[in-house]
């Protein structure tokens, strides 16, 4: 049973457009929701994260929207750039630091 469900599996966006990736979870014990960015041949790296006590967090062009009642959260990339082309993973963890990852979204930003 997948703890965190992520969609879409792949996404093509034109340069300057908005990229949106969605995740859903069931376990209400999760209290930390990070997003990771992975470039080919590299390990994932933290992009942005949110806790369930806030509904939105913004860092530059990247925004997480969090809906606690629906148990959903999403990543929005504004003004998408070709350099944003990567695989994105959502994740969820508990205070015991067991992380569960979504299946990943491969983003391709066309110039």
């Amino acid at each position, binding site marked *: 049973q997948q703890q*965190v469900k*992520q969609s879409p*599996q792949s996404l093509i966006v034109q340069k300057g457009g908005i990229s949106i990736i969605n995740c859903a979870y069931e376990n209400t014990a999760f*209290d*930390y929701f*990070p997003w990771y960015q992975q470039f080919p*041949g*590299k*390990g*994932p*790296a*933290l992009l942005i*994260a949110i*806790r369930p006590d806030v509904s939105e967090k913004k860092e530059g062009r990247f925004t997480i929207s969090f809906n606690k009642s629906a148990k959903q959260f999403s990543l929005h990339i504004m003004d998408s750039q070709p350099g944003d082309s990567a695989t994105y*993973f959502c*994740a969820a*963890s*508990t*205070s*015991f*630091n*067991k*992380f*569960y*990852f*979504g*299946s*990943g979204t491969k983003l391709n930003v066309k110039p």
Partner: protein
Amino acid sequence: NAGVTQTPKFRILKIGQSMTLQCTQDMNHNYMYWYRQDPGMGLKLIYYSVGAGITDKGEVPNGYNVSRSTTEDFPLRLELAAPSQTSVYFCATTKGRGSGNTIYFGEGSWLTVV
């Protein structure tokens, strides 16, 4: 500042062979993890450790073993390799217990079993 270092980067293994993936960290983190990444499947937790001498199974532990004799090192042992173990393996660390800790990944080890 190396962070999390994994070796080897690439390895081809024959069915039935055994090998150890090495992982070392210089961040003085207590928690260490091994994940495998398969296409379209995300990252699955194999084993994790909350400190030296303590290890526990994750989601997909079958066919693997780990040990944690020091804070820095967390090797992953593959016994009797099978084609299903062809994957990319990531070692990772976090500081310790408490919500909101960032998980730091190594650069990965690509393993092919033929």
